[in-house]
């Protein structure tokens, strides 16, 4: 802790001038050279506002009302809030650099990545021509981009998400800053790539003696990368501690809850003997690739390429894989929303694969679905009551309007929402509440199987746990089975009986949760598991 302080924020306050609401209530922190300072909190806690306020990049709707941000200058200390706007601009480029969550939108899609980095260098240094290119290639090599010389001429869309983020980091490092602000740098990335990018940040922190402010909602990221942690809650830092002390001895109840959201790899769901409810045999879903004027089918995208699995009654099967592995497509194929290209889907012993719309109707009642994004899975123009009633009406459960209202009330009770909410509209709810409505909607028709397509990945950590608990309670109560589609291995142990790991349309490994999580055999599963953050580091 004796390292030099590179940036000191004291008593930073931000308000909404219009309503007088205080967004930041006196935030203080300091960044030291060679150390990563993690600012943790859920969405809306004020962590991004803090970083933007430090850089004086707040949107017009917010105003800084107090505090200082000091950086050691060449002769004496400077307060960033006292600098002129043009002096601030040099600070932004030279002293402090930022990287953001979504690299794809931060890069210009019509310019090659090398030129974009060169552009930054040209603005701040005297390098020109070949020397400039050399420097960019050198930076690319430093951030671990393979074959950096060839990648110079690549366009952003030709690179993977992880590589794009590396380009962003190279751009941020181009002007040799002392301070790096990373705002959720890995949230948009798959877990295996997330691990690599974090390792890179860690390594650069040490090799370049950077002072890093890492903003994240993910405790696993903190555990892997940070030296010091500050937990933010409603505009205040409620706890601050070195990272080891924090994870072993959190003081605040809220911090405890955040840490508890990390997976516990010692307790698993016991696997009971069960009768199979859903069986997939060699299921294939291909999407044709059409070319030419006549739209001739030239090839197929093999989204799901021969998957076989079996889900028992009252059981949870977790289907794990990274984005693009075909796990959501498989879910849609079971719902008959995607035509099968091959294989059989048996539900309760009957073949339901490739049924026509009308023939599928009797099964619609028995298989339901919950989607990832609670905001887009509710029609904004229908009241919550109507949304829940939709399935009951269209599947002809034969209820009178009074019975239906009563049932909607019961369902809302069951998912721990108030009965009065049935008259409200989706935009009046929070994400967690909406996901409860989605659960109620699925339950409304008494299904035997619910396909949960990443139901918690759009939710904050503490709400995620509540929703998962609710799902498990409902399983015990109604004996419903879940096909749980997720990219997040960390929620699997407490939830699933069986796990299947998908990669590029193929199920590479499946078995009981305990077996997969403690003794994986396939290298891909091992890689996935290695990138899951843990409390014990």
């Amino acid at each position: 802790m004796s390292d030099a302080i590179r940036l000191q924020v004291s008593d930073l306050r931000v308000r909404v001038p219009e309503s007088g609401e205080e967004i930041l209530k006196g935030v203080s922190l300091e960044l030291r050279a060679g150390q990563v300072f993690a600012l943790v909190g859920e969405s809306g806690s004020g962590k991004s506002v803090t970083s933007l306020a430090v850089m004086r990049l707040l949107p017009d709707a917010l105003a800084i009302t107090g505090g200082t941000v000091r950086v050691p200058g060449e002769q004496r200390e400077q307060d960033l809030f006292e600098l002129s706007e043009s002096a601030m601009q040099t600070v932004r480029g030279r002293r402090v650099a930022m990287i953001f969550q979504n690299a794809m939108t931060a890069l210009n899609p019509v310019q090659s990545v090398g030129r974009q980095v060169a552009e930054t260098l040209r603005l701040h240094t005297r390098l020109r021509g070949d020397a400039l290119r050399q420097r960019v290639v050198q930076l690319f090599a430093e951030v671990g981009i393979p074959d950096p010389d060839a990648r110079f001429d690549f366009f952003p869309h030709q690179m993977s998400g992880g590589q794009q983020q590396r380009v962003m980091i190279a751009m941020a490092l181009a002007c040799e800053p002392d301070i790096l602000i990373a705002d959720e740098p890995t949230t948009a990335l798959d877990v295996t790539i997330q691990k690599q990018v974090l390792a890179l940040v860690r390594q650069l922190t040490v090799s370049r003696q950077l002072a890093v402010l890492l903003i994240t909602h993910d405790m696993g990221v903190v555990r892997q990368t940070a030296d010091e942690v500050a937990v933010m809650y409603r505009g205040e830092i409620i706890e601050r501690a070195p990272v080891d002390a924090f994870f072993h001895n959190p003081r605040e109840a809220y911090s405890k809850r955040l840490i508890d959201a990390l997976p516990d790899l010692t307790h698993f769901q016991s696997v009971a003997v069960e009768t199979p409810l859903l069986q997939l045999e060699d299921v294939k879903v291909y999407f044709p690739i059409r070319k030419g004027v006549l739209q001739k089918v030239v090839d197929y995208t093999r989204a799901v390429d021969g998957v076989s699995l079996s889900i028992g009654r009252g059981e949870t099967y977790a289907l794990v894989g990274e984005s693009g592995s075909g796990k959501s497509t498989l879910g849609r194929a079971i719902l008959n929303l995607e035509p099968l290209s091959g294989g059989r889907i048996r539900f309760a012993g009957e073949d339901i694969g490739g049924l026509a719309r009308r023939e599928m109707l009797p099964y619609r009642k028995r298989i339901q679905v919950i989607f990832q994004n609670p905001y887009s899975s509710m029609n904004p123009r229908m009241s919550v009551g109507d949304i829940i009633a939709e399935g009951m009406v269209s599947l002809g459960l034969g209820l009178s309007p009074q019975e239906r209202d009563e049932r909607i009330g019961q369902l809302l009770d069951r998912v721990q929402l108030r009965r009065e909410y049935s008259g409200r509209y989706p935009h009046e709810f929070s994400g967690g509440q909406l996901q409860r409505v989605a659960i109620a909607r699925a339950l409304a028709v008494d299904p035997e199987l619910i396909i949960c397509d990443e139901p918690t990945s759009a939710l904050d950590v503490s709400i995620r746990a509540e929703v998962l608990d609710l799902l498990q309670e409902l399983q015990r109560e109604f004996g419903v089975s879940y096909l749980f589609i997720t990219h997040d291995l960390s929620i699997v142990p407490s939830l699933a009986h069986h796990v299947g790991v998908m990669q590029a349309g193929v199920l590479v490994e499946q078995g009981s949760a305990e077996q997969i999580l403690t003794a994986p055999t396939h290298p891909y599963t091992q890689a996935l598991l290695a990138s899951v953050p843990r409390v014990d580091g």
Partner: protein
Amino acid sequence: MTAMDFKPVLLWSDVLVFLLVIALTLFFYRLRRDPQTRARWGRVFSSRLGMVTFTVIMVYVGIALLDSLHFRRALPTPEGVDTTEIFYDNKVTSVLDVLLDGMGERFERTYSAPFALQSFEKSNMKDEQGDMYRGYEDLRHAGQHLSHPEAKWLNVLELSATALAWGLLAAALVVGVQWILLRGSKHPWQASWAVQTVVICLGVWLVYLSHYYHVLGTDQGGADVAYQSIKGIRTGVLLGTLSTLVMLPIAVTLGVSAGYFKGWVDDVVQYLYTTLSSIPGILLIAASVLLFQVYIDLNPDYFAIGMEKADARFIALCFILGLTSWSSLCRLIRAETLKISQLGYVQAAHAFGVGHGRILGRHILPNVVHIILITFVLDFSALVLAEAVLSYIGVGIDPSMGSWGNMINGARSELSREPAVWWTLTGAFFFMFVLVLAANLFSDLVRDAFDPRSALGRSGT
């Protein structure tokens, strides 16, 4: 004269207008039930600008509606003819003409400037001795009450003061009634009342002064320009709304089905609109109008009076404009539907086995309504301007039917004279400008309120 001294005339465009008013009223009544939509409209009307522009648009619509109640006056039975049959005037009058109090019946011989007492052009006249000479003829309907021509401007002032007094009185009545009814409202009605006061005062002043002068002068045929500009309102407003309403069902049906069903339906619709938008619009419209004109000319017995002929051509123009301009809206709706049909709630509806019709009606249509609304108000002003362009090149409204396009078309040669005849253009331009400006400002507000990307429409991430 018998008890029945007029006969109502129902032109096809009148029928359409009143159907439209009923349909729109029902539509907005239904929309009111949705609290989100109500909140959005509330936002439009909570700004002064929204109130002002809406009032202006309503004044135009009101005038258009009054001008759509047509009838034919009974002609007095000629003396010496012993018959009980009543003959009706071949000229169709509207309620608006009655309210304007004969403003359209005061013809001069030719051009005269605003407030002029004499004709703008010299003509052959006879002096007291009966000798021919060239001179400026006195106007028939201007300044007849004056004893000295020099007292004209003083007289205008006096008349204006009287008119203003009457106008303020009428405005006080109208606004007073509203004030009693809407006192508790949180919307800025004061802005609307201010506009109403101005409009009523202007209207009373115009009608009152028209008894003594031609306020905006007369055109080549000697017709009152102010009257013609007011008659142009019905044409403009109707053309804007009717064409949009012809276009909407086509664009919505094709766009939604292309986006929802995809596959070959989408292919067909896309081929249709790419073909349509690759033909120059004006040419297509001109060709269609000319074709229809031939049809009218070949079948004269379908139309009892000249007005009906003009009306048929007008409706045809509305349909042609509507039929040729749906492609851009269709494209927008198709894209939006493509997006919505991938969203969770449509997928969930599929998983519930909800039928296609119900999905389209309950999930997709309500969520593209904002696009339809925004396009409706935006296209409205574009179509009013399109009419002016079409009339200018001679394929627009029948010349016997007052329209701003025809007035502007007539004014192009007048502007090249010296001294220029500027008032025809000014009259048409002023009335059109106010309508188009109000419609554009209003559509901006509607777009801000209904665009999902704006503050109220919370977007999911």
